[in-house]
């Protein structure tokens, strides 16, 4: 283990380390803690110029209450959910199929199709922007959640295929051969042999895609406008325009917008990190 385990170091360094840890964390999260503090301060504190004073009273319920009952925030949140969940499902379905095809079968163009997905996943969004916007307009899906979902599924399939294919490659191949010898048909091999083994990969991927899509801003601005279909990342900007300089409400709103992926991360931490770091270890 590197660096030297703390138990084997001098007592003085052990104590320093123990006190450095919380201090470092505090520094690291300082900008965020400031926002959390803002979100529970009453409006009067800001008017008086006391930005960093201790809240004169706890106004958390009041501030968050206004975010939930007095603004478009719940609608934006709902839109985000209705965009994110179908995207995750679509990506898992499509990429478990493409991943299976590229991971199990050997055929000439296999590696090229795989590279197409990988390369496509890396391109800058801007090169897709105008044509995708046109396509969405032509399909009559501009400013709808469906339009956004369809694009997200297609684009994320690139990353997901990379993910699934590498995962399936690592499965024991004799398992598939044995099933073939038994005369099991190919789609049954997919359904009964490979799919059950892919569950951890699907879980990891779902959490990642959830976070990516929830946090997407660019496509939300390009393909939608207005509260009826925009997700919360785009909503927060109009929320801020509405409450400009109302720092207590803006911070409460930001925290609400940021919360779902954070909750997802803490609930599914193991899968999340397994997904993010796939390939970081040989």
């Amino acid at each position: 283990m590197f660096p030297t385990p703390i138990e084997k170091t001098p007592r003085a360094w052990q104590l320093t380390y123990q006190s450095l840890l919380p201090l470092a964390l505090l520094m690291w999260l300082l900008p965020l803690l400031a926002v959390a503090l803002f979100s529970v301060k009453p409006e009067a504190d800001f008017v008086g110029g006391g930005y960093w004073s201790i809240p004169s009273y706890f106004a958390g319920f009041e501030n968050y209450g206004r975010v939930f009952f007095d603004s478009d925030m719940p609608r934006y949140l709902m839109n985000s959910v209705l965009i994110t969940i179908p995207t995750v499902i679509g990506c898992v379905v499509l990429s478990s199929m493409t991943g299976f095809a590229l991971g199990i079968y050997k055929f000439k163009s296999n590696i090229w199709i795989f590279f197409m997905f990988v390369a496509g996943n890396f391109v800058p969004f801007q090169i897709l922007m105008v044509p995708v916007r046109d396509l969405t307009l032509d399909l009559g899906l501009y400013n709808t959640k469906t339009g956004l979902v369809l694009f997200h599924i297609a684009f994320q399939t690139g990353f997901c295929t990379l993910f699934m294919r590498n995962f399936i490659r690592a499965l024991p191949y004799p398992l598939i051969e044995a099933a073939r010898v038994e005369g099991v048909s190919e789609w049954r091999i997919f359904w009964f042999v490979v799919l059950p083994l892919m569950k951890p990969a699907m879980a990891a991927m779902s959490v990642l895609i959830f976070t990516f899509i929830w946090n997407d801003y660019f496509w939300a601005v390009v393909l939608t406008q207005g509260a009826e279909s925009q997700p919360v990342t785009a909503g927060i900007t109009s929320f801020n325009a509405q409450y400009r300089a109302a720092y207590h409400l803006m911070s409460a709103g930001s925290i609400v917008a940021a919360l779902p992926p954070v909750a997802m991360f803490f609930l599914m931490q193991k899968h999340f990190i397994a997904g993010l770091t796939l390939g970081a270890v040989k």
Partner: protein
Amino acid sequence: MSITAMPTTEIVPARSWYKRNEIAVTPWLFLAPGVLFFLFYVIFPIFQSFNLSLYAWDGLGEARYVGLANYQELSTDRAFETSLWNNLKWLVLYLLAIPAGLFIALFLNQTVTGIRLYKSLFFFPFVISQIVVGLVFTWFYDPTFGLLNVMLGWIGLGPINVLGDPTLVTYGIIAAGLWPQTAYCMILYLTGLNAVDPEQIEAGRLDGAKGWRMLWYIIIPQLKPATFIAFVVTIIGALRSFDLISIMTNGGPFGSSRVLSFYMFEKALSEYGFRMGYGAAIAVVLFLIMLVFIAYFLWSMFQEERAR
């Protein structure tokens, strides 16, 4: 009369075409939906953008072919030049996330009580949307009440308006971007450190390697896969920077914090006009820059595939 068993010459039904070619056909059936979707939404649009960059088009009327005029205009466009330079700053400075992430990972790679929670909380910034990160840092930099200036005040330095200063603004936004990116690199290295071979470390210790030498000659070479991924995601992240600029400065002051991705959006799809063709030309330039890296990534992956 006894029933004699008929010789069971089972007539083999002509197996269907699908059955005979099952192994060759199945992968294509499984690929079809994903590949078609991807072609229509990702691959074809790339070529369409290339084509569009040769036209002048406002998004509504008839597109007019103008040849390379858009690119000629780019070569004299000062705003484009600024964006290009800023992209370069992003590329270089964003890479700081890699050593910074390694540093934090080494700091946290211990087994004391509560370390798991510490690791998660250090990772926290990556999970939050860049929009919120942008807002958080906008307030952090605020000249009237921002924490940065409060802290600078303690050591007697005057208030600086990071986001209002054309020379500082890009660095300020990059610093905000480094926050989540460092967290990402940290988690990659923490996983990598977990898999470092303890025997090699012991052997190194016996040979008298300590501290920096141990890190450089024994640990870092073993972290190569993690470093590669950190490099890939950081480069992509640097060239994709859009959200932070959009929320923190909207390209300002005086367009000094624009990057190509933002400038393209501004030209093609904002109140500054709908110049789709010109925007596409900017996107093509950005794409070509990215292509250098994509080619390198694919080449590395290809080497690895062959080595298997």
